[in-house]
């Protein structure tokens, strides 16, 4: 099966006429994803590599039956783009854009609270269910259909780790993004992987900052029925410094790598310290 996306997902690209939007729309379609069009206000009626452009998400949904979107819009306008997707009743909105102000994201998720849309990101590479669909920017070559679920705060580190699981392949790989406030958490994904018949093990890729890993560990301890492996980046990060990702910061003494590793180990999560070890550790647990 897979989680979040599959062959039936119909995707629109918000920001399709921009350089990144156009490029990735084509790449997703090439992968086999049903990319049914895109949205750039004011450019409705145009075509981007044969894909229809609409002025609004509502318009696009009405004409194409889209149920998901991916956003390639500058950070200043990303919140509005997410709100528009949520307002139009999409099942999934993936925000790739980096640099969204934290309070913007707080307001977006508050708006989403009692509505049906799942928001993924922001500042994330998206999601891929290998062999089925890609709503994201990850390089196709690193992934193949299989039984390992991967959920990560990172971009390229996710690809690195996924490429170490090729013996088993991946059911779905989800990038939840590197910001402090994100639409989908580790627990959200673990819950979905737990219920997915095709996923036999999960790899959690965390990093310094926040307490999402600790809460995920609690969930694994009490509810997870499948083996979980974990990797935490940032053991050498100094406190108080933002390490690239807006959410990767040790503040007030909390969010350190040792704390997260300790929480993982207490929950029975196999902690891996080198991407290269993952293949062997997966074998041991499967």
């Amino acid at each position, binding site marked *: 099966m897979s989680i979040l996306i599959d062959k039936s997902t119909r995707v629109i690209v918000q920001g399709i006429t921009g350089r990144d939007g156009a490029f990735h729309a084509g790449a997703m379609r090439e992968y086999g994803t049903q990319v049914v069009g895109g949205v750039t206000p004011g450019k409705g009626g145009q075509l981007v590599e044969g894909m229809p452009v609409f002025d609004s998400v509502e318009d696009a949904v009405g004409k194409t039956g889209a149920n998901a979107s991916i956003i390639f819009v500058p950070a200043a306008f990303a919140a509005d783009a997410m709100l528009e997707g949520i307002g139009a009743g999409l099942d999934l909105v993936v925000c790739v854009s980096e640099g969204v102000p934290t309070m913007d994201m707080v307001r977006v998720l508050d708006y989403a609270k009692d509505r049906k849309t799942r928001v993924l990101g922001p500042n994330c590479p998206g999601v891929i269910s290998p062999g089925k669909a890609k709503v994201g920017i990850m390089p196709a070559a690193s992934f193949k259909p299989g039984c390992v679920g991967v959920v990560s705060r990172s971009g390229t580190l996710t690809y690195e780790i996924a490429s170490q699981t090729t013996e088993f392949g991946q059911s779905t790989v989800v990038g939840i993004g590197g910001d402090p406030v994100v639409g989908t958490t580790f627990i959200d994904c673990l819950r979905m992987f737990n219920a997915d018949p095709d996923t036999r093990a999960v790899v959690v890729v965390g990093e*310094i900052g926040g307490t999402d890993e600790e809460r995920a560990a609690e969930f694994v301890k009490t509810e997870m029925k499948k083996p979980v492996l974990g990797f935490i980046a940032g053991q050498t990060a100094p406190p108080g410094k933002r*390490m690239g990702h807006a959410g990767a910061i040790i503040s007030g003494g909390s969010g350190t790598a040792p704390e997260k590793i300790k929480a993982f180990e207490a929950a029975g999560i196999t902690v891996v310290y080198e991407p*290269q070890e993952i293949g062997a550790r997966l074998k041991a647990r499967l």
Partner: protein
Amino acid sequence: MKIHEYQAKEIFKAYGIPVPRERVAASPQEAAAAASELGLPVVIKAQVLVGGRGKAGGVRKVEAARHVEPVAGSILGMDIKGLKVNKVLVSECADIKGEYYVGIVVDRAARAPVMMASAAGGVEIEEVARTSPEKILKLAIDPAAGLLSFQARNAGMALFHDAKPARDFTEIAGKLYRIFVEKDCSLIEINPLARLGNGSLLALDAKINFDDNADFRHKEWEGMRDLSAEEPKEVEAKAAGLSYVKLSGNVGCVVNGAGLAMATMDLIKRYGGEPANFLDVGGSSSPEKMATAVRIILSDPNVKAILVNIFGGITRCDDIANGLLQAVGTRPELSDNSVMSLRRVPLVARLTGTNAEKAREILKDSPVAPAETMSEAVRKAVALAGGAR
């Protein structure tokens, strides 16, 4: 982005939060003039972007006029936790009867702002959270409704047990929240919020951190930035579109992606080396960016080897390879324009993903040492930097 106490107090003043009468001074003479204007006694406070000023001797009360200049002189120029004190705030003294804490941050797990208030003011809030968390009131703030008056009032009653200061607290809390939202803060704190002998409240200190992601809608922030408190190379890197944090080791690293960059640093340490920096070149693979990245790392004299770890998705490895060639030059004996013409250190490059084969071809006869896997690359770089400890 952090700002100084005196800058945060300017914002407080603009919003009507009561602060002491104070003046900024950049020299002992200015401090003396300020003291004479305000009237003694005064408190002279180091303006520096770290906590623990008091413990470091950066906050001192002065009773006599003739002591103002020497005390200000001893605080100005002080090094507090690596930062130099360039300004002091000369503040009138207050008749303090009690010290309280009030602050706002975004609670990541709750995905909403939270206001914290405590009667244990004047101490580091993290300390209180560690030793007596029950002393901290937490007000969950609904993002759509904002901080509601009754929430602040109830907190005020719990802190002061008296309607008048509770009312004043309610007003201050409301203004604090308005600043938090309107100025896109990531943190705002009054510690201590003092209750005075006459029953009124006064913000004796002010701390504001801005959410860097919101800078596009706050042009006024640029003029408030204290560049002297920032690592110059980090400032330079940011201007070039690179994310760079200087550390103290000898293995420099250039990586695409923050998570992968942190994992690379961790692996360097694991294999007995010490990372010299964090550097994320991001998605772009332009030769100029690669050359700038290598140059910034090389400007750190501690660096003995450089590791380039690139997982190319959209980023093309052949672009990176060409950029590296430009950085290292191919003919070291000629005076060339490569960034390594001044100082040559061994460079290991592990390029994987899109066009990795092409990249390998490009770097075949260059001084760049290749590596297949991340572990191999780290091992090589650590060895070239002088070996594991």
